């Protein structure tokens, strides 16, 4: 399942980061890598971007970037 479609407030585990661009490298540097625990907290009022918790920190990332991150239930 892609992070884009992950249910809100459910602990998930990152299984793969499929894209190789500046945004995905930055997301990885901030801890969104294979094996990391991620929870979708909410989506912005207009549906995009999304607010996630990764490990101890909270990030905002766009739907387009979330689409290339695969997750599975924790």
């Amino acid at each position, binding site marked *: 399942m892609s992070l884009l479609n992950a249910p809100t407030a459910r602990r998930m585990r990152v299984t793969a980061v499929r894209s*190789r661009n500046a*945004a995905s490298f930055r997301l990885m540097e*901030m*801890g969104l*890598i294979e094996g990391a625990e991620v929870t979708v907290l909410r989506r912005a*009022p207009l549906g995009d971007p999304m607010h996630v918790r990764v490990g101890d920190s909270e*990030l*905002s990332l766009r739907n387009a*970037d979330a689409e290339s991150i695969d997750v599975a239930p924790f």
Partner: protein
Amino acid sequence: MPSRSTLHPSDAPSAPSHHHATNPRAAAARIALVGNPNTGKTTLFNALTGFRRHVANYPGVTVEVAHGTITGTSVELLDLPGSYSLAANSPDEAVLLDALCGRIPGQPPPDAILAIVDASVLPRNLYLLSQVLEIGLPVVIALNMIDVAQSRGVAIDAPELSHRLGVPVVPVVATDPRTLPPLIDLLRAALPGQRTAASGPELPADLTRLRAALPAAPNPAIALRVLLDRDGAAPRAYLAAGGSRAALDAARRQLDDQHIDVAAEVRARYAWIGRLLDGVVTRPPQPVTTWTARLDWLLTHRVWGALVLALVLFVLFQSIFRWSQPLMDFISDRLMGSLAALATVALPEGAVRSLLVDGLIAGVGGVLVFLPQIMILFGLIAILEDSGYIARAAFMVDRIMRAAGLSGRSFIPLLSSFACAVPAIMGARVIADRRDRIVTILIAPFMSCSARLPVYVLMTSAFIPDRYFLGGWIGLRGLVMMGMYLIGVVVAIPVAWLLKKTVLAGPPPGFVLELPTYKLPRLRAVWQRMSHAGAHFISRAGTVILAVSIAVWALAYFPRSATTEQRVRATAVAAGWDESRTDAALQAEFARHSFLGRIGRALEPAIRPIGWDWRIGAAIVASFPAREVVVSSLGTIFSLGHDADEADLRGALAAATWSDSGRPLFTVSSALALMVFFALCAQCASTLVMIGRETGNWLWPVASFSFMTAVAYVAALLTAVIARGLGCDG
């Protein structure tokens, strides 16, 4: 390294002066403060240096780096830009690596690094640390926000972490000075010269081998960036310094064959961090619900969050207009009024008194009066930033900013641009994508900065009726002011969209933003930002604006021919005018024949359809260096020979008439048009210089000035025509 010999071994406790004794060149030790954004880095810097920061622009890079001396020591601390990684995406991050490695001209490398890490987000903070350790300088770690970590039930064994890393780890709470002495003692007495390097991340073997083989890279940390950051600043610097492109390309081909990229580096580092923290960090079985989570529910809610954002922006605009009024009255009436009165009494009539009263006091006073508004605005922006709210605002508006082809990241520089475009254009460095950055820089001057306020305030208070609706809650003047702030935004969006579709077209960049824990803004830090902004404004008022005031006064005062005077006096005698009427007529004739008057008259055919005569044209021309100058220019042009204050100026403007018809010059429509013109024009030399410097292309400021002036002219004309059509002039 030789520079490290100036540092004490860790077992040598010493007095503050001892450091100099061991250093023959008597150069103070320099410690660079590095860390992720939102870790309390600036708070720690202020606490260590006693809020005495000296902001310096490094030559050639113009990123502000604050310097200060650690209290009670001779150690110099450098506050470097916050970053998540040494991989440089933005110019800020490039400065970090360059400063750490001593590659900034005229700046020696630091002797040691003070790394601040946020204990409540420890793994991610250790990512940057793992890169910083590879630079090879001694490192001390300040483990900040242990209180926040504790409140979440997270416990950290700092001595064990220190033991495993081989560097000192000092728990601190940057906001609590009582927790700092152990860190200061360590920095003063015992900068560690040693580090056990055994425990670094296990990068892929090929990467380590190629990194070691890269000639001309000063240290392993830089070599890694040269290899891995394909479009980054490090490879550019490497090639510029004479590094071999062939060797680099060959090395990169080998990495490509092995599928080794930044992702491999990230995995290796996080694997190391995982092993490092195993047994060091203990977490509660269930995460604790934090205040930040509760606040976020409200503040990023699609209804309540949007309402709060609208409320915040509304308070921002109303408050700078209303709260500052008493202070403004004090400055203009008491301070400048008495100065002008004093000078008028003390000096004989003539060029010197005119220069002092009409040039100096009126010019600088007319600008100083806006100091309260600027400081209030910067104070509010500081509160929004320090509390963490501004990141939530960026999160909520990202989708909207994308309509203009930008990201929520541009929201922060653009919001700052409502205070002043100059720092905002510098602030655009946080935007990693080059095209987004340039678009943001180019539309930032459309946001109504504090320098427009003088024009808005003068025109609004003089010509917009003081009416209230809904039982006094909504004022017409406030609405007009809000309209002026909105018009820049309304114009900026299509401009940004057009730029992104044409000259700056490219793939959409990502938007990755940390949403930090909410923090209570610290009064002293907010005050520091306010006073810095105020001091900056005063120094501008004292230099550029003062020079312009005198130049404008001279342009308006000279030439004064005896022929003009004789002609006016002859007319006066013939018509039987009294002395004050003669004097007024004389001043008007002098102004009309002055250099500025001639420029204004040359412009009059173009601006007459808007409802402006040559005097307004002359004032606009005179305000090219800085918009706020238009107020003092108007003062000089309209009230020569009076001891002008703002009320006098309003009166003089209201009394001004067209020379041919005798109708009032300023009406609701011509005043609105003037406000619209100043909302959209590029009358600010500092902004134009900054655009050139930050984009690295001097065609941008030229294009920016031409385009904005054209837009401002057309919009002013439309405003005047529509307002007249609607019967606003009565």
